[in-house]
């Protein structure tokens, strides 16, 4: 297969309300930074791929129509990707595929969410007729599955709070993070209100306005780059139904199969030993140990032990979310791409204060819907095999 690489990344300052910019301005803040980081100018961009989560969040149907000018899409192909919360990752994978297929030399991938234009809890709790009035947003959806994980794995109760402390402190090292809480402690997390029992306030992601952009180039473009690039060693996407009899909500089959395909394509046989840093989509703290298992970093039921032992901190065996992750910044449509971009920044050596020393191989991961869509990539300092 043809090689592809991340030439550069960019992201916005993420915060609750970016009332200083329009949706177009938000996207361009990330795009302009990505182009500068890649050392690429508009004439070199061959196509644009846009991702964002459900249109109900901004109340703009098909925002790619009115954003075309701002995205630099005039005179170029523009694609829109939809895969709920995983869309930022899926957008990166689609852009990679366009390059790897030999269709384009350089593709701009962009993802955004402007959550302040509405209310995500409302948008995710629309109740159709003939149903009982019990929807309670993403937290209400995922909390029972977190409870099931805790029961199944016999994980001690404090592991969720440990993840929150780690990620929020990591976020304090990331100048773009929405939540930066260097003073947070296990005690303060455990003292925070229980929102969707067993999920506490400090264990949930914020609602953010934000965007992310990535420039992906082919081998020639990567070799022409004056700065280090992140070689895309493998990508994978898998899907499964939201509900079916026997669905494993704790360890979904689509996620496990995507990971298996990803490691195989990347030539990785022992992910825990061979991956130096992982940016994993963790919107509620307990999803760190859950996804560590689903991704094959540990056996089922043992993910929490890696977290509890401190090995997922910066400096540990597998630093997870050194950027602070989704727990610190959650512009939903962009959150997956931020994981992909942060993984690339690590292997390019451009992660600043949250750089993991010597990172050569990194995972970017996203999931969306009711644990329905999975997208992931492995990037490396070298192209691999």
């Amino acid at each position, binding site marked *: 297969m043809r090689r592809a690489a991340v030439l550069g990344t960019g992201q916005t300052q993420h915060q609750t309300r970016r009332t200083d910019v329009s949706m177009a301005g938000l996207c361009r803040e990330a795009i302009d930074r990505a182009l500068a980081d890649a050392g690429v100018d508009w004439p070199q961009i061959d196509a644009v791929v846009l991702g964002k989560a459900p249109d109900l969040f901004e109340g703009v149907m098909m925002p790619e129509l009115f954003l075309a000018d701002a995205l*630099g899409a005039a005179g170029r192909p523009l694609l829109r990707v939809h895969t709920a919360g995983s869309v930022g990752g899926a957008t990166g994978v689609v852009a990679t595929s366009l390059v790897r297929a030999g269709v384009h030399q350089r593709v701009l991938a962009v993802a955004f969410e402007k959550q302040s234009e*509405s209310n995500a809890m409302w948008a995710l709790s629309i109740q159709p007729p003939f149903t009982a009035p019990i929807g309670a947003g993403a937290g209400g959806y995922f909390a029972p599955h977190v409870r099931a994980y805790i029961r199944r794995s016999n994980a001690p109760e404090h592991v969720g709070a440990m993840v929150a402390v780690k990620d929020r402190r990591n976020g304090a090292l990331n100048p773009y993070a929405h939540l930066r809480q260097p003073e947070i402690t296990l005690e303060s997390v455990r003292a925070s*209100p229980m929102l969707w029992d067993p999920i506490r306030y400090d264990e949930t992601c914020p609602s953010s306005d934000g965007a992310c952009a990535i420039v992906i180039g082919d081998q020639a473009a990567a070799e022409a780059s004056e700065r280090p690039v992140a070689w895309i060693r493998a990508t994978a996407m898998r899907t499964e139904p939201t509900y079916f009899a026997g669905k494993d909500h704790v360890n979904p089959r689509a996620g496990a199969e995507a990971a298996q395909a990803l490691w195989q394509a990347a030539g990785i046989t022992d992910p825990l030993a061979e991956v130096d840093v992982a940016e994993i989509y963790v919107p509620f703290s307990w999803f760190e140990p859950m996804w560590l298992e689903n991704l094959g970093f540990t056996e089922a039921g043992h993910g929490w032990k890696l977290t509890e032992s401190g090995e997922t901190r910066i400096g540990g065996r597998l630093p997870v979310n050194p950027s602070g992750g989704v727990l610190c910044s959650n512009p939903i449509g962009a959150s997956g791409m931020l994981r992909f971009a942060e993984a690339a920044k690590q292997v390019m050596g451009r992660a600043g204060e949250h750089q993991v020393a010597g990172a050569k191989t990194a995972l970017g991961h996203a999931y969306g819907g009711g644990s329905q869509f999975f997208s992931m990539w492995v990037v490396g300092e070298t192209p691999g095999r």
Partner: protein
Amino acid sequence: MFHFLNSRQGVTLIRLDRTCFTDLVDTASAPPLAAPLDIAFDYTRSLGPVLGRFMTGLRDRRVLGARTADGRVHVPPLEYDPVTHTPVTELVPVSPTGTVTSWTWTDRPLAGQPLDRPFGWALIRLDGADTALLHAVDAGTRESMRTGMRVRVRWAAKRSGDIRDIACFEPDPGPPRAPDDTTSGDPGSAPGTSSASGAGSDPATSGDPVTGIVTPIRLSYTHTTSAEESRYLHALSEGRLLGQRCPACHKVYVPPRVCPADGVPTEEEVPVRDHGTVTTFCVVNVPFPGQRLEPPYVVAQVLLDGADIPIPHLIIGQAGDVRMGMRVAAVWRDRATWTTTPENIAHFRPTGEPDAPYESYQEHL
């Protein structure tokens, strides 16, 4: 007919007439149930520097266009130059008068459109602009509309910094006007704002810059159930819980549906009991717009006896003591109120039986 109407920022659920649910219909051949679903939210838009200045101008009865690198003036303004991709920074005033470049006519205006009487939808190139703006022309009759006709802005009497500050356009027999002519197009319709004075002394030209707008959006759907779900709902109206077995995997689905794993419709009807086991649950403590229950409340996944997939429902009773594996039973509302809805079951209550062993439901988590 009855309805729930929470608030402007909520979901409005209006039930169809009760006769749709009558027990006299042959449920096997009755058409699938349908009901309206209205979704509404007042979206808050932040405008950014270009659109913010444009909307501020409208509030002050001035139309601004964006000048791009090629010298063209775009109205409404673009935020980014489509040729050079650079941000637009130069906004220039254009005239409130212009020329219709193309048009169509609407005989039956819809709610929310600029006028409530027949009007022309027109592309209007304002004097000084190079692009056309889509707006309504209050021309009275279709015969009065023509390409090339001259029109002028009719300002809204009350303006807030919104595209609707232009109430509409109207025919303008006069000469082109200067960009700084803030005269209302229809003095009679806007008392107190029809001063012909020049820029600087207009009392309307004041206030803070406009940085955001509110965009109310309302979507109206007709939600139609599948034939299988209709039979399930009709059974609920008779106090029965109905499942269907997938012919391929033999799993019993409640409510019935095309089997998501095998992609085949379920056919064989299987009655399931209104007793079951809590597989897992969540205590909702968080309030949110559109919520129809007062927090805190317990939402549980209940695996009904005889079913292979849990249904979500409320657990009430022994508050704070809901457990995985707890045995529960449906608490039905008064039979006289039953309709085709799962809300016939008010909630589930603990039965006091010993908890189901974990192994009996672990495959359903």
